[in-house]
């Protein structure tokens, strides 16, 4: 167990330690109870009662432990990753403030900054003024940080999900450009005299590699990730990057929006916040023995085709899987 957990540690020692504490906490909290997973789901415009949810795995029904819906508590973790054009950032901040202020009183919003590494700007609170002030005062500076921080932020979300009976969502608002990361994903030309270099004919390789690694890790997490990208870019590397962000969010059951104009920014933020607010967190009990890669089927009482949309696949983390 000890060795495995060390192998699975991903980033700095700090993260390892935190994850270790989290896992131990999970174990302690889970003693005597069957393992469960939380699946984000959407039911369209209809109002659905908890008892209406059905779950199955490979045709075998699963017990739905709990369902938290739009009227329940929501912990929204907002990570701002803003390093670029002030002309885009300020409207995004204003739109975000407007949307946060519209959140129901049972929704708490916590604020993180992602550029140059993850940092807490303000703790989750229902005090909208404090959150708004945090958003307003966040400087536009540093290097893009979404790829470096999203795993850590999602782990925080998962820890909260495991500890408290609330819905949790992670929202990144970013204007990141793949060229603006500290780590090199662009593979710049080093020897300009080398005219026969074909290794850069497919320059997306490094971005895809990073995205694939992250996707593998986020597949084992249960906090849905939402991304609003403020500045859609059409160059090949950024296309690969933006496609990768879309993959990451969809892996967790979340979604992403890419703004192509100023008008798109408030609209996208509004849409994503609405989506977050509308989500159900369906807690499903897993059988004692199960595969690591799960395709859990959700449905509503009344049958198929009733507009239910949910995260289709989930991978149990190595630890959770072993626990099974």
């Amino acid at each position, binding site marked *: 167990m000890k060795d495995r957990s060390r192998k699975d540690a991903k980033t700095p020692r700090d993260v390892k330690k935190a994850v270790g504490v989290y896992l131990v906490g999970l174990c302690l909290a889970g003693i005597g109870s069957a393992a469960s997973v939380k699946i984000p789901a959407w039911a369209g415009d209809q109002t659905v009662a908890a008892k209406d949810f059905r779950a199955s795995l490979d045709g075998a029904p699963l017990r739905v432990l709990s369902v938290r819906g739009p009227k329940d508590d929501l912990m929204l973790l907002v990570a701002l990753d803003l390093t670029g054009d002030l002309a885009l950032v300020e409207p995004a901040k204003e739109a975000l403030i407007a949307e946060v202020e519209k959140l129901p009183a049972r929704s708490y919003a916590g604020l993180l900054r992602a550029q140059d590494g993850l940092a807490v700007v303000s703790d989750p609170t229902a005090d909208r003024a404090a959150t708004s002030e945090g958003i307003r005062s966040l400087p536009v500076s540093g290097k893009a940080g979404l790829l470096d921080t999203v795993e850590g932020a999602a782990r925080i979300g998962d820890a909260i999900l495991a500890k408290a009976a609330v819905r949790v969502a992670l929202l990144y608002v970013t204007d990141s450009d793949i060229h603006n990361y500290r780590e090199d994903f662009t593979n710049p030309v080093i020897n300009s*005299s080398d005219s026969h270099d074909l290794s850069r004919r497919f320059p997306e390789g490094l971005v895809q590699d990073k995205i694939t690694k992250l996707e593998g890790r986020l597949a084992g997490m249960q906090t849905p990730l939402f991304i609003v990208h403020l500045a859609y870019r059409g160059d090949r590397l950024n296309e690969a990057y933006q496609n990768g962000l879309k993959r990451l969010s969809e892996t967790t059951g979340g979604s992403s929006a890419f703004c192509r104009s100023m008008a798109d920014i408030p609209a996208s933020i509004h849409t994503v916040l609405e989506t977050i607010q509308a989500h159900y967190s369906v807690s499903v009990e897993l059988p004692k023995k199960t595969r690591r890669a799960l395709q859990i089927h959700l449905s509503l009482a009344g049958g198929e085709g009733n507009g239910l949309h949910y995260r289709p696949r989930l991978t149990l983390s190595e630890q959770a899987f072993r626990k099974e």
Partner: protein
Amino acid sequence: MAASLAAAWAQQRPAARMSEMERAVEEFKIQTRNLGIRPDSPRRNGNGGPAGTWHGRVFEYFRNDFLDAVPHEIRQRGGDKSLLRRNQFGFNVAGPVVIPRLFHGGRNTYFSLSYEGVRERISRTYLRTIPTQLERTGDYSEIVDSAGQPLAIFDPASTRVNPAFDPTQPVSIDNLQYVRSEFPGRQIPKSRLDPVAQAALALYPQPNAAVGPFFRNNYFINSPETNRANGMIGKLDHTLAERQRLTLELAFSDGFLGSAHWFPTRANPGPSDRDFETRRGSLEHVLTASPQTVNTATFGVSSSLSRNAIEGSSEPGAAFPVYQLSPYLSMGRAWPVSKSAHHSYAWTNALSHKRGKHGLRFVAQYVRSQVNAYWPQYPSGSYRFSSGLTSLPGIINTGHPFSSFLLGMAEYAESSIVPRPSYFRRSSRHIGFRDHYDARKGVSLSYGFSLDNGTPRVEKYDRQSTVDLQAINPVNGRKGALVAAARNGQGRTFQPSLWRLSPHASLAWNPMGSAKSVVRASYGRSYSAIPVYSAQWGTQGFIGYPTVLSPNVQLAPAVLLARGMPAPARTLPDLRPEAANDTVADLIDSSERLPTYQSASLTLERELPGSLLVSIGAAYSGGKNLLVSNSAANPNAIPLDALQFRDKLNDEEFNRSLRPYPQYKGFDVYSSYPFGRYQRDAAFLRVEKRASKGLSFSAYYEFGKQWDDYSGPYGKQDYYRRELEWALTPGQDPHRLQFSYVYELPLGVNKPFLAVSDWRRYLVEGWSVSGTAILQSGNPIYLRPQFNNTGGVVQALNVNVVPGVDPAVGDPGPSLWFNPAAFDQPPDFTVGNASRSHPSLRNPGNQNWDMTLNKRIALAPDRTLELSAAGFNFINHADWTDPDNLIGPRSAPNVNAGKIIGSRGGRVIQLGLRFSF
């Protein structure tokens, strides 16, 4: 561990009395504290060490000819190998800066270091024409013209005035001004062969191919070159007190390009071996004064050095002389030994400020550029040979340049005397302003301007000169005399220092408030400065171009090879006003014209269901005063109405008397004369599908047309009536389709199929396929008459159009791509009536399909091994070469006109291995 458990347990207990949301907040605090990302977190010193926090990769890309298809151009010549040995390797490592026990950069100080090396041997191929073995001995009995008829070679020593010549009638085969005798038996006597030419021929290779037609395309070059390179890029990024950031970047690259040998001798006309060195450094400081104000200051330095050298010597004088034998491959090379170094220093400050609905940006920049150049073009001399001296004077399709070479009779000779390098300097200033105005919901406007100033080029020691077109030449009293910088009242430069204001504006509008649709419009106008080039152009008098001209290219040589170039009459520097007389003199344009560009575009973007994004648009761009070279600008050109003087124009003295500046043979404006115009109109459609079920792709189609009055491989027919030169631009394919795709195969954990998590996942997971393809229609065909009998008045003659004959053929193919009967050689001393490029005929199109298959193997969560196999032109498609564009006269048509003699291209495979951690 036990302490942590206890702490975690202790933190859990009070939570039992909390509400669920309070419990969630408390957990947030615990987690973020443990991560050390809270303001009140204990300070972390990164005692975890670098191993767990550094990322990077090690890679190798491998290519070898045993993996590749034999290129079509080689297979067609009977070859079965194209040598290729290539290894490209390197690493990248990045992470926090760590000095054990002393310093841990944590999130504040970060570095990245990349290295890449290349070792390569690769073949170059060319198909050229060289003289036959018989021809080298002076035997022309088997030599034919492009129609397959015996080529007549005349003895210049037998030239005599034709007493029956009627000066009121044009020179023709029936009315010759001069008569000559053919060499008996079409054989130049051995005693007449020039010994210098014969010695040079010992260094000329033998024909090794017979592509034809006749004796043409008989030398196939398949020669390897050796290349190597080593380079590094290092970056250091440091955050100071959250609001300030410093980034230092340093890079270097050393490269060697060992050029392929066209000949295995010192007469090799191929390029020289080259060494490269580049150095670059920049320091950037970003100050976030407030959430609404960011200032970025950058200082950058860059340096590049390029050295040409001939094998075994760095002395220019050791180079083989240049013998220009067109249509045959020449001997010797220009710039055999040269060196140039470019340095630039740039300081930039950009201030961004958001105020209400306005996003303001101010930019100031100062750039200083230096070029140090040692650039002798012909240190051992250059000799040009033409058919005139072995022709029947005034009659085309007689004589041959190579026979003139055998006789040692050059029509033009020049050498370069460059005693020292030149040290050029210039600077530029830029002030820019932009306001991004969020006018109202759904409408944003961006507008601004830039104010640019470029100082003209100076030379560190004032060793610059030009022809002043207003100064009086003491030799003939005409305008045009050499002037030198900082002498006789002349300033240090020859051009004015100019300020130019460039406006730009763009609009983004969401029609009917729909964020899914965006209409974009933009307009911009800009100017570009005249750059500092690498050559030592504009220093005549400090360096010398001794030039010898033929008094009549049909009657008398400029020099005899056996005698060589005459010694210069004066030593350098020679700054007399008449010092540039009788040369192609350097001319620096001193007007206030600067290259000016305008562009406008309109685009509609629409997001569709299914993650589809469609953009459709149109764009216009145009420019004037574009910098052109000698083929497109000649202020000393003879107006075309002088063609009425016909054969008299062959007399050099008479010919020059018609030039605006008769004391000069011509002007060398290098590539710096602001005289070109262009316009491009294009419409495009782009479809992009964002990643969905592992697949993403984009496709782009463009239809465009570009015209200009200057470009092309041959030059202009009429320098004075530019409107007649307005024609389609070469190299511009009207249709271009490009698409690319990435498909992550849906296999493995968290994918729809084969979601196995045991050992089989190593086989199943991580497969992806990426590809790109480009398909282009052909670019406009340039037709060229085979002969140019205009007495040197026209440099680039157009063909004539034959009325009523369709230039297109029903099923264009290699045997006939266009109908050459639709064109004709213009009669002597007339210009062609066709445009420079044909308005409807196109060269064959080309296509390229690249694909890579990647397999990622996750060795650990942070460690992957990636194997890749990339196929470039993986379908092994052959692109046809361009058709023969030479149009001969009706009397001796080029039998190969309109035909395609081969194809090129071949599949290349590259294997890659990358370990990332």
